């Protein structure tokens, strides 16, 4: 069964990426986690994302394309990256989620991947 681990970070946690005093620890923790999860052979897909200020949001309002600077919502924690993994059940997915640095410096939402609708084939 496939799950997406949606890694959310606080701004303070994310800023560690470029703070020379702590960047080593920050990247070290992520490198260790990514190495372990890759080695387990369960990763379907995964990416880290550039910070929210690099985002551009688009929506259609009254048939017109409206493009905005920044992410969709201004929240305390924001999407920093994701992994899609293939594991037997929720508890296994939660165990991997808990190991990620995001669980300590933010939160990880675990969501099952939607199967194609029954008549799509």
């Amino acid at each position: 069964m496939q799950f997406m681990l949606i890694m959310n970070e606080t701004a303070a946690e994310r800023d560690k990426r470029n703070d020379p005093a702590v960047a080593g620890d920050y990247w070290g923790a992520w490198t260790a986690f990514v190495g372990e999860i890759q080695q387990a052979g369960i990763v379907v897909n995964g990416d880290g994302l550039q910070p929210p200020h690099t985002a551009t949001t688009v929506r259609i309002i009254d048939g017109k394309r409206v493009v905005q600077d920044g992410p969709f919502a201004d929240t305390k924690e924001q999407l920093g990256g994701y992994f899609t993994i293939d594991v037997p059940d929720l508890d296994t997915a939660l165990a991997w989620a808990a190991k990620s640095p995001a669980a300590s410096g933010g939160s990880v939402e675990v969501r099952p991947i939607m199967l194609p609708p029954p008549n799509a084939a």
Partner: protein
Amino acid sequence: MTTARAGSATSLGKDDVAETVVERARASYGRLIALLSARDGDIAASEDALSEAFAAALRAWPRTGIPANPDAWLLTTARNQLRNAYRHETVKLKAIDEILIRMDASDAKPATIPDMRLALMFVCAHPAIQEDMRTPLMLQTILGLDAGQIGSAFLVSPTTMGQRLVRAKAKIKLAGIGFALPDRDVMAERLDDVLSAIYAAFGTVWDGVDGDGGGQPSLAGEAIFLARLIVSLLPGEPEALGLLALMLYIEARRPARAGPDGAFIPLREQDARLWRRDLILEAEAILTHAGALGRVGRFQLEAAIQSVHVQTPVTGSVNWAALRSLHELLLQHRPSIGAFVSYAAVLLGMGLVEAAREVLDSLEPSDVAHYQPYWVTRHAVLAATQDGEAEAALKRAVGLTRNTSVCAYLLAQARRDRPGPP
């Protein structure tokens, strides 16, 4: 008494068959649901398939005789139902299918059916399930209670409870909650969720208003059954033993809780001769065994507090010192509102009125606004110091009491408290 003989193919009365089916439904429901659902987590589909299997048994068994292993017959029939339901989907063959395929209805050894009920209980009480739905899920899936029976015990309409159960089962399937026992490191925490869900079925029980079940149907018997089941499946877990002992102590006092007219009788005024000695002895033995395992916890401490209460008539006096230290330990393990209020009642019993009041005052008003035992205890503390606010506290308590005989008792107390002519 006529009993249907297993395997006899002739002259079986419809009543014999119906009796056997009902008996199987009671004894094996949870076991069969657990095994069928473990396949892909689809509890709702398993329930449908199993009820079809029971209906098929009612049709077939009068003709064929009751099979040597009725559970295996039911399981095979239910599995075929499920397979028909899934025939348009490509479903991977899992270990559970292997077990189901190897099951043979003519095999009379019931031990060949693996017991997945413990895994099912951990699924029902999984932290991904809304807390107030864990108990109803367990009552339905393990014991086969319907939404109406569960709803009336939790003061929710059958329709609402039915919808909530459907949603909870959909969540189990879609969220991918696995039918596996938790790892050693999360076991204690998850077991606590399971035990708490069982205790919730037992009802709100607190000694200040011993047995205030709120007038709704009691699920005490069901809760004790579940606790016995978990003790048999996890014999080395002291907290599971503690929970069973706790409920047996409280259940033992049930016959003494109401007078002949149905009037409520509080713990200290109960006729101890009416307490069920068999249950008390069983509880004592279980608690002793739990204690020997050397891992103390919330349920063992609560059971120990009950043990002190039942010793009172034997020794002739309340062992307040023991009650106090047990409550202090309990607060270290589980600082719940209930434990604080109960602790205040013990301090009051020892004559430490100010200390009792301090404990009550330390609680958040929003946490206790609707907690009946808090207001009963608050009234007792204020009445002990002739505080004018005592009556207001009692009125809050009465307003929060659902059980009519407890209500009558509290109102009578209010009349006694009030000075001057009636």
